[in-house]
C-alpha cells in the first residue's frame, strides 16, 4: 500500500499555529510581493476565494468579509514543512517528499494501515498544530484520490479493491491527479463525470486521446502500480524565477532593474547546483485585457529588445526561465 499525506491549506495552517486569533476566521496567504492568493482557509474557500486570484481582484471580497490576509512567510512554512517531513519520514520505512506539504509513504506490509495513518495524523496535529489528511491505496494515483476524499471524510481514507467504486464515484473527474482543464473538458464531452467513469474507460480510447500518460492513469486507478516511490529526487532540469511586480512599471530602467534581480536570483540557483545553461527565455506580463491596470507597460521593453519574446499571460507574474541545465561549469 502507498499513502499520501498532505497538509490542509498548509500556509494558512502554519500562520494559525502561531496566531490563535486566526482560529475559525477566513484567512488567505498571498504570493511573493502580495501578487495573488496562494492559500485559503476553509472559511475563505467558502466565501468564494479562488487559487491564483490577483490581490487587486480579491480586495473587495477581503474588505467585505474582514478576511485576514498574510504575505507568504517561506521561512516559517519551510521550517514547519521540515518538521512535518521529519515526523512523516519516521512514520514509514520509505518516503518520497513530493512538495512542501505532500509526502508519499510506503505502507507495504503494514497490519492496519488506517490505524497507523490515524496515529500519524494525530501526532502531527499534536506536535506541530498542523491538520493533515492521509489517503491510502494500492497506487500513487489512487492514494492521491483517497487523500482528496479524506478532506471531507474524517482525515483518513483507504481505498481497497472492495470499495474502489464507492469512493471513486464520489470524486469529480477534475480532482484526479493529472487531469487538467483540457483533459477534463474532453472527458466530460465523452460523458465522463467522476473518477469511477474514467476508471471504466476503454484503455485503447484513452491511449489514443491522452497518450501513454492517460493510459497509465487508468491502470493506476485500477490498482495496477505504474509509478514507483522515488526516494531520490531527480536532478532539476529547469530553474524559474517568477514574481509579480509590486507596482505598475512603465520605465524601461525600472523593468531592467527588476529583471536584473531575477537574473541574479536564477544564476545563483544554477550555480548552487553546479550547472550551467545556454538559454534563458523571459516572460513579461500584459494584463491590459483584464480591464484593470496592467502591472507592466511592455512597450518600452519591446522597443529596446526586439529579440525578447513577449507572451501575453493573464494575470501572470513576470518570469525568467533558465533551461536546460548542463552539469558542470561552462567551458
Amino acid at each position, binding site marked *: 500500500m502507498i499513502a499520501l499525506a498532505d497538509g490542509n491549506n498548509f500556509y494558512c495552517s502554519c500562520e494559525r499555529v502561531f496566531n490563535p486569533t486566526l482560529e475559525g476566521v477566513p484567512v488567505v496567504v498571498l504570493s511573493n510581493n502580495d501578487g495573488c492568493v496562494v492559500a485559503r482557509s476553509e472559511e475563505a474557500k467558502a466565501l468564494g476565494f479562488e487559487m491564483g486570484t490577483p490581490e487587486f481582484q480579491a480586495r473587495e471580497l477581503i474588505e467585505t468579509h474582514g478576511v485576514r490576509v498574510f504575505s507568504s512567510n517561506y521561512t516559517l512554512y519551510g521550517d514547519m514543512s521540515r518538521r512535518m517531513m521529519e515526523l512523516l519520514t519516521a512514520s514509514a520505512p520509505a518516503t518520497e517528499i513530493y512538495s512542501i506539504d505532500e509526502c508519499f509513504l510506503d505502507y507495504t506490509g503494514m497490519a492496519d494501515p488506517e490505524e497507523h495513518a490515524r496515529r500519524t495524523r494525530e501526532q502531527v496535529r499534536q*506536535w506541530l498544530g498542523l491538520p493533515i489528511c492521509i489517503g491510502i491505496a494500492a497506487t500513487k494515483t489512487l492514494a492521491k484520490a483517497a487523500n482528496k476524499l479524506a478532506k471531507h471524510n474524517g482525515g483518513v481514507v483507504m481505498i481497497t479493491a472492495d470499495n474502489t467504486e464507492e469512493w471513486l464515484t464520489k470524486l469529480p473527474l477534475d480532482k484526479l491527479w493529472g487531469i487538467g482543464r483540457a483533459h477534463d473538458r474532453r472527458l466530460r464531452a465523452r460523458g465522463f463525470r467522476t473518477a469511477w467513469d474514467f476508471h471504466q474507460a476503454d484503455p485503447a480510447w484513452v491511449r489514443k486521446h491522452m497518450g501513454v500518460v492517460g493510459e497509465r492513469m487508468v491502470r493506476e486507478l485500477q490498482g495496477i502500480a505504474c509509478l514507483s516511490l522515488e526516494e531520490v529526487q531527480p536532478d532539476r532540469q529547469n530553474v524559474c524565477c517568477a514574481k509579480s511586480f509590486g507596482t505598475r512599471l512603465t520605465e524601461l530602467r525600472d523593468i531592467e532593474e527588476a529583471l536584473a534581480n531575477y537574473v541574479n536570483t536564477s544564476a545563483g540557483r544554477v550555480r548552487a547546483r553546479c550547472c550551467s545553461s545556454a538559454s534563458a527565455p523571459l516572460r513579461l506580463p500584459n494584463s491590459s485585457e483584464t480591464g484593470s491596470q496592467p502591472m507592466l507597460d511592455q512597450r518600452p521593453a519591446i522597443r529596446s529588445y526586439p529579440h525578447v519574446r513577449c507572451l501575453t499571460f493573464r494575470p501572470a507574474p513576470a518570469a525568467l526561465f533558465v533551461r536546460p541545465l548542463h552539469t558542470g561549469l561552462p567551458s
Partner: protein
Amino acid sequence: MGCKLLGPASEIFGETTLPLAPGAVRAGFPSPAADYLENTVCLQELLIAHPQATFLMRVEGDSMVGAGIHDGDIVVVDRAIKPGDGKVVVAVMDGDFAIKRLRYRGGECFLESANPKFKPIPVTEHSENSVWGVVTNVIHRL
C-alpha cells in the same frame, strides 16, 4: 505574561557542542578539580527532547517570576509532552499566548500565575485546546 515566537531552535543553538567542566559547580570557591575538561555537551540535546515539536518563545511580563521565569527570558516549549497537573504551559487566552501553571483541583482546571498579584483563571471549556505546549526549560540571562 505573554510570549513571542522566536526562530527555529536549530538556527539559534546550532549544532555546536561545548566542553563540560567535570564535577558539579559550587556556588563558592572554584573547584580545584576543574583543571582539565572532559565530556562535551550539546545545548540542543540538553534542552530539547523532541526537536520537531519544540519551539522557542521570548517571555513578556512578570506573572511567572515565582517559577523562575522572568521578563525577557527564552522558554523552550515542547508540544509532544502531555500537559498535566503542575506543568508550566503556554496557554491560549483570549487569542493571546500566556505562560501559566496548569492545576487540576476537584475536577476543575485552572491556570495559575506564579505571582500573588494575579488570580488563578478557571478554564471552563476546551481546556485541552487551551494548552499550546509545555514549558520544559528557561534560558535566563544573568
